[in-house]
């Protein structure tokens, strides 16, 4: 049976769309999050976004001990994207919990804590330190080298990926969703996704950066001190979208957080239609520090324009055969045919092509819902200190 989504007569701005989304046991009123490593621990972005109005902040991947990161240059701009080789610089979990997590909690911001480690034991210890802390979700960054396995990246091997997730699930605070963040640099992302889910992951964050490099043709040397770096930004959006699509197709009941090059509300909608329940905004924050709040607003409008009143109606919709859903698209400017009903009758008998009869889903069905200081003092003798917020261990 087909579903018609009725076009709203009110302007989309005034339509209330329920943007609630569900990520395992976590229910948030908005599906837009910041991506790990692109928002620090939120504080700096508060000047440009109401962080309580978006889904939440995913903090920079935190390790057990303070880490200084890699040498500079750490970044290179590339077409519609950038390469980074930061090397997970950070203060270590103890300072993070005391300072950054406390700040997020105090300001009512939903905190998703991204964790990283070099051994399975590292991951397990870090996750354990989050018990009884104001953490809404744990995201496991498995795109790091496993020192116990010749530096092989955890995310590139189903066995190591699963072992990390299992260890984190055991020691992480009970009831808090654990998401595995996968690398696209694998032959079969679905196989890694399945291994993580079998090991206890609540859901999956797709994707981390993909490895790339750039050479300075003047010095004739690699631009990044680390030689290679992670490529991100709109340049990788099609790759990220493909990963979300494939994994949602294989694991339709597992919540996915889509990330990679999202710049506008329509970009975010693509990920939702591919099967993501939520999205993260990363590199585009560098271009537009107000992007998370803007994208959240634009996504809400885009959903309203498509005649839906709940975000959850749109999740995975792209996988349905075209004849099942004929939303009335936004009116093209100056089109006289405003409100013309679309004739859908001839499509109703067509099955969905996978041998199953077209699903009889009512899109209004409630059950679809599962799933710096005033004046710088200057003493000629005593100069100021530079205790960077990020490293004061």
């Amino acid at each position, binding site marked *: 049976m087909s579903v018609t989504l009725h076009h709203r007569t009110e302007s989309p701005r005034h339509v209330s769309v329920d943007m609630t989304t569900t990520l395992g046991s976590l229910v948030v009123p908005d599906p837009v999050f910041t991506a790990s490593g692109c*928002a620090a621990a939120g504080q700096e972005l508060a000047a440009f976004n109401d962080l309580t109005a978006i889904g939440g902040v995913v903090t920079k991947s935190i390790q057990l001990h303070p880490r200084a990161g890699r040498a500079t240059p750490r970044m290179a701009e590339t077409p519609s994207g950038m390469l980074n080789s930061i090397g997970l*610089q*950070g203060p270590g979990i103890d300072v993070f919990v005391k300072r950054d997590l406390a700040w997020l909690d105090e300001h009512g911001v939903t905190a998703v804590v991204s964790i990283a480690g070099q051994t399975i034991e590292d991951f397990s210890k870090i996750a354990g330190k989050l018990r009884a802390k104001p953490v809404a979700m744990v995201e496991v960054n498995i795109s790091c080298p496993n020192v116990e396995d010749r530096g092989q990246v955890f995310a590139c091997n189903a066995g190591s990926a699963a072992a990390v997730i299992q260890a984190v699930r055991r020691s992480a605070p009970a009831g808090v969703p654990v998401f595995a963040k996968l690398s696209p640099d694998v032959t079969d992302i679905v196989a890694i996704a399945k291994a993580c889910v079998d090991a206890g992951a609540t859901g999956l964050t797709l994707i981390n950066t993909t490895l790339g490099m750039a050479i300075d043709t003047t010095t004739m040397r690699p631009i990044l001190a680390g030689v290679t770096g992670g490529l991100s930004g709109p340049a990788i959006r099609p790759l990220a979208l493909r990963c979300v699509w494939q994994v949602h197709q294989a694991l339709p009941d597992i919540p996915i957080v889509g990330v990679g090059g999202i710049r506008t509300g329509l970009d975010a909608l693509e990920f939702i239609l591919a099967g993501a329940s939520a999205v993260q905004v990363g590199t*585009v924050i560098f271009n537009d520090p107000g992007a998370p709040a803007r994208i959240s607003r634009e996504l809400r409008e885009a959903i309203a324009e498509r005649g839906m009143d709940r975000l959850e109606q749109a999740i995975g919709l792209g996988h349905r055969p075209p004849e099942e859903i004929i939303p009335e698209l936004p009116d093209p400017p100056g089109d006289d045919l405003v409100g013309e009903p679309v004739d859908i009758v001839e499509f109703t008998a067509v099955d969905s092509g996978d041998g199953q009869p077209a699903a009889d889903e009512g899109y209004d069905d409630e059950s679809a819902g599962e799933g*710096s200081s005033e004046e710088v003092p200057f003493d000629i003798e005593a100069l*100021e200190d530079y205790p*960077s*917020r*990020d*490293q004061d261990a």
Partner: protein
Amino acid sequence: MAVQVKGEVLTLKPVGEYFSMTVVAPGIAEQTRPGQFVAVSVGGQGGGMLLRRAFSIYSVRETGVYGGTVEFIFSVTGRGTAWLAAQRPYDPIDIVGPLGRPFALPREPANCVLVGGGYGSAPLFLLADALRTRGCRIDAVLGASTGDRLFGALDAKRMAASVAFTTDDGSYGEKGRVSDVLPEVIERVHADVVYACGPMAMLEAVQRVAGASYGGAGIPTQLSVEESMACGVGVCMTCVLPVVGGDDHTRMVRSCVDGPVFAGERIRWDALGTVPDDAIGADNK
């Protein structure tokens, strides 16, 4: 607090080898302090250049017919600055600022030497205004590779008790580097502090001279560094350099929020571009 403003180009004019751009950007001017910078979006909305370009704030006007304006000086060095140079009055421009830690100012009137290299002299003029208000004496040293690349020579003569110019090719002022004439200036004016902005190599030389002045007693410096930045607002960790803190520990510090102005003696000049082994967290590879 920094603001993001969808502003508009008011004027764009060539100044020697550089361009000066004035942008109508209400909210930035009112908050600007000397040494702060703006991060400008280049390439137009939806374009392929994602990263903002950082420019020191040269001048601001809080009010006027157009509302607050911000002026910066830039050199065309790549695609982003070439795009900026092709903008015209009324073109939209997205600008974030004011960003970064400003120059620290003396509490008491002091003798201040201001050193600028190339477009690095741009932020020194707002600084000079603030210093003058505090009754400070100002002397300046401006240097560049060529005379065309000296910025603000005329202004400098107006604001400072004395100005020394140097160019690498001798096309203007003395042939040589700012650090060649700086020792003499420091001693002659009984300088209490040196402020500088310019290329890293120049800043390092300025620090060496200031540190060795008065028979090795040295005087404090406030140096504005230029590190490659991706976000400009403190969230990405690309713009770091090794800096010694008050506890004598070296940390990789973000130059966009903890700088761009640093006390020169705190910068680990020996280790620029690297993570020194004694930095906090350097053992955790």
